[in-house]
């Protein structure tokens, strides 16, 4: 089978640009730092501080929106100053500092909110310049593999985070501050690694000064890029949020509540294993095809959840396949369409549009769920996603170049 012949074993990291591997390792270390805090935060709020957690969660939507806006700002500033690495570094550093903020914030709820906001801001700022660096460091024909390597390393970090947090809690006899300090130290290591081993890719200066408005708006006049953004957002509008998938899996197969929090590991594991092979597959047969194929995997997963056949693990495998075929593949597909001096801002526009559309999808599914029930809500959004996927495949917005 084709997939097996391009398995990760035959993809030694040395064939991937050093800058991409360096960025992947920075992301790995940073993700360990971020995920260890995510894993203990509920415990810390309820047990360490004795807060009532029901007062949190209200700001989630606000944070998600702010992250989206800051991603645009990060991308724009990085292109404007031609300093991708510096802007990404500022984002990584902000998130690192926020970990110490937990120690300073104590049990003051507004201060904890501010600390979380700084952390999200850092994540928003760094994403676009980082993806632009990956894109500019890779040859156009192997860009899928580069993003695959980066996303695989990133996911390894997400796996390790909770384990490191557990180890630190165990070693420190349940001291939450130790987790925050360790998380800060790891995030700072990430910043040092970025500074030392990631080479900045100074994009070529923009050829003609653009008059009036943001140059990225001019980009949207570019038909190929505009179509990619519109289709990515259109697909995002009908892309179901992870938590609904896991809830549906739990209901369908009556997964024990003890096992429920482990379901995301199934998705992440598949994502990790398939990110590189599917990135390479995209390099060979066309990234847009793989991107759409990923959505078909999601559709199949959702149909299995609603239908009489299938197994929960198969749904998780397909869900992980969806991520492996879309998360890194989309920037790899669109990156080469963008002029170098607008790579970060262009990727920011693309990913922000997709993220905002997915937020709208989450609200829609929540609403349909309340009105009908979970199963009809999922079926409705799956049918809509299938329709958009078929339309995107027929109209072939991006298959011009591979």
């Amino acid at each position, binding site marked *: 089978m084709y997939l097996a012949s391009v398995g990760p074993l035959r993809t030694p990291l040395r064939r991937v640009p050093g800058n991409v591997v360096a960025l992947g390792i920075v992301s790995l270390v940073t993700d360990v730092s971020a995920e260890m805090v995510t894993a203990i935060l509920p415990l810390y709020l309820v047990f360490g501080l004795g807060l009532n957690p029901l007062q949190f969660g209200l700001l989630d939507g606000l944070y998600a929106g702010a992250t989206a806006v800051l991603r645009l700002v990060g991308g724009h500033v990085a292109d404007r100053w031609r300093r991708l690495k510096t802007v990404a570094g500022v984002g990584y550093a902000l998130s690192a500092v926020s970990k110490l903020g937990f120690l300073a914030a104590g049990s003051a709820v507004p201060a904890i909110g501010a600390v979380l906001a700084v952390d999200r801001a850092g994540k928003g700022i760094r994403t676009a310049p980082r993806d632009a660096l990956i894109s500019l460091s890779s040859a156009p024909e192997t860009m899928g593999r580069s993003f695959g390597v980066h996303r695989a390393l990133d996911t390894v970090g997400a796996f390790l985070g909770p384990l490191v947090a557990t180890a630190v809690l165990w*070693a420190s006899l349940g*001291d939450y501050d130790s987790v925050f300090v360790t998380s800060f130290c790891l995030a*700072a290591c990430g910043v040092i690694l970025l500074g030392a081993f990631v080479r900045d890719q100074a994009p070529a200066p923009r050829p003609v000064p653009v008059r009036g408005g943001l140059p990225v708006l001019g980009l949207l006049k570019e038909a190929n890029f505009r179509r990619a953004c519109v289709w990515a957002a259109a697909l995002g509008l009908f892309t179901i949020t992870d938590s609904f998938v896991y809830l549906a899996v739990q209901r369908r197969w009556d997964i024990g509540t003890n096992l429920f929090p482990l379901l*995301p590991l199934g998705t992440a594991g598949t994502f990790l294993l398939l990110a590189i092979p599917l990135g390479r597959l995209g390099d060979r047969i066309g990234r847009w095809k793989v991107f759409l194929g990923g959505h078909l995997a999601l559709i199949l997963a959702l149909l299995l959840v609603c239908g009489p056949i299938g197994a929960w693990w198969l749904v998780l495998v397909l869900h992980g396949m969806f991520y492996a075929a879309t998360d890194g593949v989309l920037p790899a597909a669109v990156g080469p369409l963008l002029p170098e001096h607008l790579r970060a801002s262009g990727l920011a526009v693309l990913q922000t549009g997709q993220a905002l559309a997915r937020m709208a999808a989450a609200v829609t599914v929540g609403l349909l769920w309340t009105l009908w029930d979970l199963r009809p809500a999922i079926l409705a959004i799956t049918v809509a996603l299938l329709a958009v996927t078929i339309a995107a495949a027929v109209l072939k917005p991006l298959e011009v170049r591979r």
Partner: protein
Amino acid sequence: MTRRLLVVAIGLLALVGGAITYVVQARDGGATENAVPVVSGQTMALDGKTLFFRNLAAGPDAGKLAAVPVGNPGAARRVGDLHCDRFAAAGGTAICLRLKPGSLPPLTEMIVLTGSLHEKHRETLPGTPSRARVSPDGRIVNWTLFVSGDSYAATGFSTRTGLYQVDTGRMVKTVEELAVFVGGKRYFASDVNYWGITFGADGNRFYVTMASKGKTYLIEADFRAYRGTAIAENVECPSLSPDGRRIAYKQKVSNGTWRLAVLDLASRQVVHPPETRSVDDQPVWQGNSTLLYPIDKDIWSVGLTTPPKLFIGQAASPSFS
């Protein structure tokens, strides 16, 4: 280049070393002497004359279940080996909730104890301990846990309230299947959350908070028929008085602020005991006219009309039995 590598290596080693040092010193950071008088190594029992609580005083016995005579709450606290984050007892049965050490995502051990505080049954459930109660007849234990999603940015928190019948071993992991009527109509919504059960003396009538669409309701329910009716709004963590006539609860004032309130079930009158500080817990009745509740890390008491006073310092989760 080699010099730069050296600088980087030193930087990384310093950070990792710093983290390890911090963890190691945190390990030795616990106090070796109890901050208040504690008599350890005691055996305890539900003898009807004891006030149990979670000892919060710094020291080697912090976090353990402690006991003092009801008549002399200022006496030195007696502790055994049992660690509980939440504890409640009634009718010769006790429930102990505690966080399972080293579990991520967090798990809670729900332990049912006999009158001599020996373990009778244990379940491991997802979430962190929040509330625990035992029905006055000692036949049903119930609990509320905080359950969180896998990411703090993706989903919020919710509560999961369950109960266990001690005689039959029947377990209800969540009471969300309860048939509830609001305004005379069967209520359906995907976002319902329950917390804080309190049982009546008959071991059948119970009260619980249901939250949905930004409102909280006091549900009066029949356990055998397994159905309930909303009888009031803005009621959280109900606690039925021993005579079964009043419900003490926390009433939301604004986000993150609650005040104590007492509802007379017959007249539907609500009165506020003279406690002005925010109270975030399920109150405990001492007799039919005094309430116990935590403020910071102390247990306070207030009469329905008499002013609040400090009851036991450095303590939480009180229960008489």
